[in-house]
């Protein structure tokens, strides 16, 4: 059995340029570190890592509770600044049922409009989740068909 243990021997701060700095052992400062989730969609609260500017892993955290409070806040804040997967709450309008089709949607980040290039850009993740990718590569999440209202379901059903 392969196991990965958390190793928290760093602390975090931000420099004047707003970059995230990790202070690792012996007080060495690593500038421009990046926090990431390992399973951003299927398990957003389990499995985090801190990568250095070159993309190498500095630390692995199986959950954020192992981080002391100030660091955890910085970590979470930096995570949210990088994450952009709007969750579609309602489909208001689609320009056509044939693709490319322009969708007007309501998301948890406000209303927006995007172009769906083809039906293959709607992918089924672990059911019942769906992932929609727009023409610019932004991913939108649909938690479940059943959570959408009737109108949205009816529109979406034409693409599934």
């Amino acid at each position, binding site marked *: 059995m392969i196991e990965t243990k958390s190793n928290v021997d760093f602390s975090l701060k931000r420099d*004047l*340029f*707003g970059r995230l700095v990790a202070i690792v052992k012996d007080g060495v400062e690593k500038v421009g570190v990046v926090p990431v989730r390992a399973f951003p969609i299927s398990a957003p609260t389990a499995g985090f890592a801190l990568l250095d500017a070159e*993309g190498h892993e500095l630390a692995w955290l199986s959950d954020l509770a192992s981080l002391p409070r100030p660091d955890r806040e910085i970590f979470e804040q930096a995570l*949210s*600044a*990088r*994450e*952009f*997967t*709007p969750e579609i709450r309602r489909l208001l309008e689609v*320009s*056509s049922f*044939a*693709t*490319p*089709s*322009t969708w*007007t949607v309501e*998301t948890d*980040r*406000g*209303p*927006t*409009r*995007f*172009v769906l*290039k*083809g*039906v*293959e850009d709607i992918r089924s993740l672990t059911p019942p989740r769906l992932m929609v*990718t*727009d*023409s*610019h*590569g*932004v*991913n939108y999440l649909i938690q479940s068909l059943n959570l959408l209202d009737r109108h949205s379901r009816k529109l979406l*059903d*034409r693409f*599934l």
Partner: protein
Amino acid sequence: MMSGLSHVNAKEPPALPPNSAPTAVAPELTQQLAPHEVLIASLALDLDDDLHYAPGLLALTAARLLVQHPTDHSWSEYALDSDLTLEYRDHAGVATLELRDAKHTLSRWHFTLEQHRAARRLIEDFNRIRDGRVRDPSLETTCPTCGGPLAAGDECPACARAVHTPPSTWTLLRLWRFARPYSRQLISGFLLTLAATAATLVPPYMTMPLMDKVLIPFGNGVPIRFDLVGLYVGGLLGAAVLAWALGWARTYILALVSERIGADLRTTTFDHMLRLSLEYYGGKRTGDLMARLGSETDRICVFLSLHLLDFATDVLVILMTATILFVVNPWLALVTLLPLPIIAWMIHVVRDHLRHGFEKANRIWSEVTNVLADTIPGIRVVKAFAQEQRESVRFRDANRRNLAVNDRVNAVWSLFTPTVTLLTEVGLLVVWGFGIWQVSRHQITVGVLTAFLAYISRFYTRLDSMSRIVSVTQKAAAGAKRIFEVLDHVSSVPEPVDPVRIDALKGAIELSNVGFRYGSRAVLEGISLDIAPGEMIGLVGHSGSGKSTLVNLTCRFYDVGEGAIKVDGIDIRALAVADYRRNVGLVLQEPFLFFGTIGDNIAYGKPDAGRAEIVAAARAAHAHEFILRLPHGYDSLVGERGQTLSGGERQRISIARALLIDPRILILDEATSAVDSETEKEIQGALDNLVRGRTTIAIAHRLSTLRQANRLVVLDRGRIVEVGGHDELMALKGDYFRLYQTQRRQIEIDEISWTPAGLEREA
């Protein structure tokens, strides 16, 4: 200079988020500007600090940077000092622009990648003004949004195709394009249909005089007039024979035509598919594409030859019958035709429902074939990990979904036909009732009533079969839509309208500021490199550093997102794709051999090559000898179902293939990665022959393969980090040095554990 803003707007795709159109804030912006201050560039911000959608604006003038914050719509400004820099980065579809001075960050703005090009433009202008440079005149001939060359009329071909328009819904009518070459046959087929239909309508008409002049008088004691009987029955027979002959002729002609239309559709689609760029194939699954080409075209063909023909006949029968009925007796005709509107309405209601159902069924069907297309090529992996059960479940699930969708569709349309039949029966009752009432009042004769009943039974069967057209039309329309989706797909590597003609290239390659992204991920950024004719360049870097993308761009499998690639000073987008590729030889990691003889495979790029040429190419590629050892020599069959060859042998065949077309530019994409070092040594000789005198770009996993390269280019995360010869780069002790060291250690480890000496040491 006011054109700055309007220009950017004009080039943006029309599908903008509602909150990102700069025009919405433009009046406010004008208020912010000083009297003679002109706008140079602007960027619509569409995300606030928390990455929620909100409109804002970034505007650049000659003296300052103006910002309307998305959060509270307040304005701030930054005077353009020399120590200001704009930093751009993007991740997961969100771009961030940071304004910094020497010591810290002043502000940070977010926007979606929709604005990516406007942002690039703004940064360029910002840097230019800050450094006091003037606008580069070459920018005037390149597209302001993507940096590609402009076609006539200031239109950028790359940006024009970014417009997203869905295909029209009247898809079936578009099949006319394929029917036009056969219009003569189609017209004669239609005339035959008309005549045949008219002939089938004669017999019921004959029943009228048979009834009134022969049978009814007989009932009243008048003897039967056999001369009349002979005449009418003869007429019946003649009409039937005529209808038979005409029906045969029209079915035959139209079936021939539709079969040809189907074949044309298939070949045109396949031709179009071949011209599409690799980008298209990257996003599609083989099973789906094969289904489109195979079963969909077939379905359309059947629709044209059978169902459409039937439908035309049905319509004609109904129109002609209705005319005859009205001529004979308008009142009875009116009653007879009463159910018609109801049935037409039913057809209309059900049509929509069925179409979605069938479209869905089609998509699910592709899912079924996709499981096959996944599993069969990967069967070794499936078996190795003992996952047969899992694939079986996946296939079963796909089939179950297929069943579920079809069940739903069938539930609707199974109800449809019986309902039409029921209406038919009811209609007959109405005619009986109203007819008898009219007979009783001597308004019509018994003969007329029998004729009506004979007509109407035909009439309603026609309606019944017409109801079937609904489902088949929808199926065919759904199929046609999927075909036209392929046909409408404009290649993302478009042929230039007026291509520059080239005979032979010298082979100088110039990459200037090349950028490329897959979706939201930037793969290459700001790549600039001049390659002299005959020079060999080795591309080095970790996997994912953009090496393969760079050669794909050089081969023009994709078009650059930004910047330009020029060959002998000509932008490769200005050359005809085939002309250019004829000058490019490609040797891939996994050589693909088509089914056919070895000779045919070597001559793949030059089908008219003579046998002597093929042998010479094979000899230079060190393939000649092993080919001769095969039982059928150059005539040995290879590829799927053919002779099995080792990786090294296949690679040498593909080297011979590249040698034969004698390209000026050569791309070696990990040509030796799939083979062991022993085989690599064998291939190396062949490669040396191939590279000689050609401009070569080589990617190699083993750095030792690149010892011949004139220059090594080290890529890291989409950027060039080092350029130079091996010794030079080793002295630099940078990225290349580290790569080299890692690899040498790896080789040592391999050698220790694999050579006999190593084994002894371990023991």
